[in-house]
């Protein structure tokens, strides 16, 4: 009577046990040697099923006969759904007025939303390309391109905001003041801090000059809308609209929107990846049951996929046996391993420190060079290279050190998956910390951090060599963005493409040894996140940077697609989209935090440059906000805002948040307990069932004989 056991799914609960009993006893009477594990055939013999093989879903059918789920969500064939619908319609005649109204509303509501969805899906960007990529390479690689699209829209979202609140008002509604403002409170300060003039490049032909301008953001570009310095405080106070406030709030508002959006995605992916935590280790099961990408339709891709699954399974099986071996390791071996790991970590730390020092030096050299530029008559190429020194050094570091990390991690004797994650983590830290180092050394130059008594810095509140320091920082970020974009294209055209051509068309041993390049999703994703971080950092100083980024991402998408389809081969290692999703979103979040912190700090603490920009007359940029509150808002609103800003409000808020967290934590604990109990319950029920089964067969056997 094994049929009882193999009835699957929801039937295994106790309440259905009784219901099953009758057909079971019938079954036993009819056929003692009932078919092993073939309830369908058994059922057919009993006349319970029609000859229709579509009735394989019989078991589920019974359970979802009328439990209120919409028809389309039931696992039935379309024929059966149509039949059921007819039946429902006949019954529906007796439905009362109010019920029929809600029902029709339920029906019309999804119709409406579906129509809008139809419209939206029609104008989805890159839908066809994404489908193609998914079909050829699977959902893992797709996740990179989806991230690109997300970043594209993230940057695009800023453009209308900025245009609406700042750009349009500034270009159409401002008028230059008729009488230039006469303000001569401090002559020496003015002479020292306001003698800003746009740098002119000597000794270059016009084309060279234009070229240089485009790449360094100086000359024509320096005075353009691209940089902070262009937006001077031509107020349109007559309309009651403060450009300063709009500029600050647009950018801060956009950044907080980014914060919410990215934060939401982090939380969502965290919820997904939670299942990978130690309580729910189902590595093999989920790899087998959810391992196949049904969207892959390319024959080569299928065999590649099979290869990667096979490799992955073999690797993990080895890992399991390795872990068992590890338990038997002697203490001496363990100590030796820990020592190696410690030494290697120290080595990596030293390498990173050296890399940071290089970045620091590069910034120093490039900034010093820039300040002396007026007097010197350097050659064109030398000037360009020195200007681009920091981005070049940062890229070189980010390019080579991960390889070194990857080589070193092999000696640390971690399992393969840990190895990959560790290398990635180190690369991420290197990348973000490198950027942080660059920012720090820039800040040190501009604000003389650590050396505030410097004579250059005392007078203006910032280094007087940087008359318009916001624009200078904007230019640095602009250079970084341009360089990253150019290096993406350059590497594709000058390294990847020749490599591919060499492998395909020559018979050199070396070329074949190198082989085709692999398309590494994690590295590509990290690059994209890194670029986005630079945009976030630079957008206050160079508000059109996001627009530039939109263009760059658009081109990058096609370049990467070409690289993937025609130059690279997909990586042999399977890249699982969901398990790493959290990691990448977290890195994106980290990048955002890293951009926000220095920005907030400078906005709140440092003197904006006196020579240019909207905030030239304020002690700090943030001062605009309290001033606007005190002059424009009614007294009550001021009181309210002051209260919200005070400790008296912060303390209860903090307490409340703590309470909420405590509630959640205790709920989680309770839930895990309940889950354990439920699991026990299931096992108990199976015992019960098999016991009952035995008893039943004991009772029935003598009567049958």
């Amino acid at each position: 009577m094994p049929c009882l056991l193999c009835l699957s799914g929801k039937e295994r609960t106790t309440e259905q046990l009784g219901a099953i009993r009758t057909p079971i006893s019938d079954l036993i009477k009819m056929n003692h040697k009932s078919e092993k594990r073939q309830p369908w055939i058994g059922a057919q013999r009993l006349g319970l099923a029609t000859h229709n093989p579509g009735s394989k879903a019989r078991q589920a059918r019974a359970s979802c006969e009328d439990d209120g789920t919409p028809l389309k969500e039931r696992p039935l064939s379309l024929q059966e759904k149509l039949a059921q619908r007819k039946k429902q319609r006949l019954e529906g005649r007796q439905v009362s007025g109010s019920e029929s109204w809600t029902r029709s509303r339920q029906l019309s509501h999804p119709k409406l939303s579906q129509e809008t969805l139809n419209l939206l899906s029609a104008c989805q960007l890159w839908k066809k390309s994404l489908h193609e990529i998914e079909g050829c390479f699977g959902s893992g690689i797709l996740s990179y391109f989806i991230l690109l699209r997300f970043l594209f829209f993230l940057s695009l979202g800023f453009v209308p905001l900025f245009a609406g609140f700042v750009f349009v008002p500034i270009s159409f509604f401002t008028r230059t003041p008729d009488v230039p403002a006469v303000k001569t409170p401090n002559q020496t300060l003015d002479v020292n801090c306001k003698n800003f003039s746009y740098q002119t490049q000597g000794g270059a032909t016009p084309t060279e000059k234009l070229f240089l301008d485009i790449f360094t953001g100086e000359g024509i570009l320096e005075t353009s809308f691209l940089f902070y310095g262009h937006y001077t405080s031509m107020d349109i106070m007559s309309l009651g609209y403060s450009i300063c406030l709009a500029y600050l709030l647009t950018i801060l508002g956009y950044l907080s929107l980014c914060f919410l959006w990215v934060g939401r995605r982090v939380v969502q992916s965290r919820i997904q990846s939670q299942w990978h935590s130690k309580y729910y280790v189902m590595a093999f099961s989920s790899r087998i049951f959810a391992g196949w990408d049904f969207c892959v339709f390319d024959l080569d891709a299928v065999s590649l996929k099979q290869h990667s699954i096979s490799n992955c399974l073999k690797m993990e099986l080895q890992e399991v046996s390795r872990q068992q071996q590890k338990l038997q390791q002697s203490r001496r071996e363990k100590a030796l391993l820990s020592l190696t790991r410690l030494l290697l970590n120290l080595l990596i730390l030293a390498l990173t420190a050296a890399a940071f020092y290089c970045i620091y030096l590069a910034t120093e050299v490039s900034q010093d060079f820039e300040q002396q530029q007026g007097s010197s008559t350097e050659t064109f190429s030398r000037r360009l290279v020195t200007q681009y020194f920091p981005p070049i050094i940062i890229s070189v570091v980010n390019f080579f050190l991960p390889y070194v990390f990857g080589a070193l991690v092999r000696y640390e004797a971690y399992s393969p998956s840990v190895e990959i994650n560790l290398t990635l983590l180190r690369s991420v830290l290197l990348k973000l910390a490198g950027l942080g180092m660059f920012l720090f050394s820039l800040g040190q130059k501009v604000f003389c951090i650590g050396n505030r008594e410097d004579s250059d810095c005392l007078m203006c509140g910032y280094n007087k060599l940087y008359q318009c320091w916001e624009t200078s920082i904007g230019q640095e970020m602009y250079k970084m963005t341009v360089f990253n974009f150019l290096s993406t294209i350059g590497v594709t055209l000058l390294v990847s493409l020749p490599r591919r051509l060499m492998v395909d068309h020559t018979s050199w041993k070396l070329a074949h040894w190198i082989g085709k390049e692999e398309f590494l999703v994690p590295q590509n994703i990290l690059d994209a996140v890194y670029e986005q971080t630079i945009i976030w950092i630079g957008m206050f100083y160079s508000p059109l940077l996001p627009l530039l980024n939109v263009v760059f991402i658009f081109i990058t998408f096609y370049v990467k697609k070409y690289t993937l389809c025609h130059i690279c081969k997909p990586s042999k290692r399977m890249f699982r989209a969901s398990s790493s999703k959290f990691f990448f979103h977290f890195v994106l979040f980290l990048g955002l935090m890293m951009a926000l912190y220095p920005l907030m700090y400078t906005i709140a603490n440092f003197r904006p440059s006196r020579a240019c920009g909207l905030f030239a007359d304020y002690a700090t940029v943030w001062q605009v906000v309290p001033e606007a509150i005190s002059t424009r808002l009614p007294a009550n609103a001021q009181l309210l805002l002051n209260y919200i800003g005070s400790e008296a409000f912060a303390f209860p808020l903090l307490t409340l948040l703590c309470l909420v967290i405590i509630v959640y934590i205790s709920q989680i604990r309770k839930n895990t307990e309940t889950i354990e109990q439920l699991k026990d319950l299931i096992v108990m029920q199976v015992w019960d069932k098999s016991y009952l089964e035995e008893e039943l067969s004991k009772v029935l056997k003598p009567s049958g004989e």
Partner: protein
Amino acid sequence: MGAAGSQLSKELLSEYQELTFLTKQEILLAYKKFGELLPKEERSRVLSVRIPKAKILTLPELKANPFQHRICHVFSTSEYQDDSMSFEDFLDMLSVFSDSATPEVKSHYAFRIFDFDEDGALDTHDLEKLVNCLTGEAEGTKLSESEMNQLIQNILEESDIDKDGTINLSEFQHVISRSPDFVSSFKIVL
């Protein structure tokens, strides 16, 4: 859509929309693709004709899929068990594999696709066949017997909650609910 599209009446279209997870465009596209599989003289009777399995499997979306036979079998409602597909079966399949289908429906059909002997539970033989489909039967990729045994043992250890040696639908759905990749990968779009 032209002549082919006009045959699908408005009522039927909205009915299909309501009973499947497909949008209007997707249904019309499916109609067109299904019609293209038919010989010329039968194109006028798209709604009543069945397409034999061999023809269905020429679709690029199914051609390379290692589970193609199982998919045909599960979604076919043919009386002769020849796995031929009517237009409604075809829609059914696309609906389950569409983006908007619920995880419950998807996992239910996945279970039926993986249940090779159709006994309502995944036993060791089903699992073995499943793994072989995933890794391919080629020399280099196929798992050795000991690896296979170890793998199946591990799978059962992880997901056979009631310890009866097989994985039933609810256990399967339990695993699936913890595999966030599933919804995005159990997908076929025309």
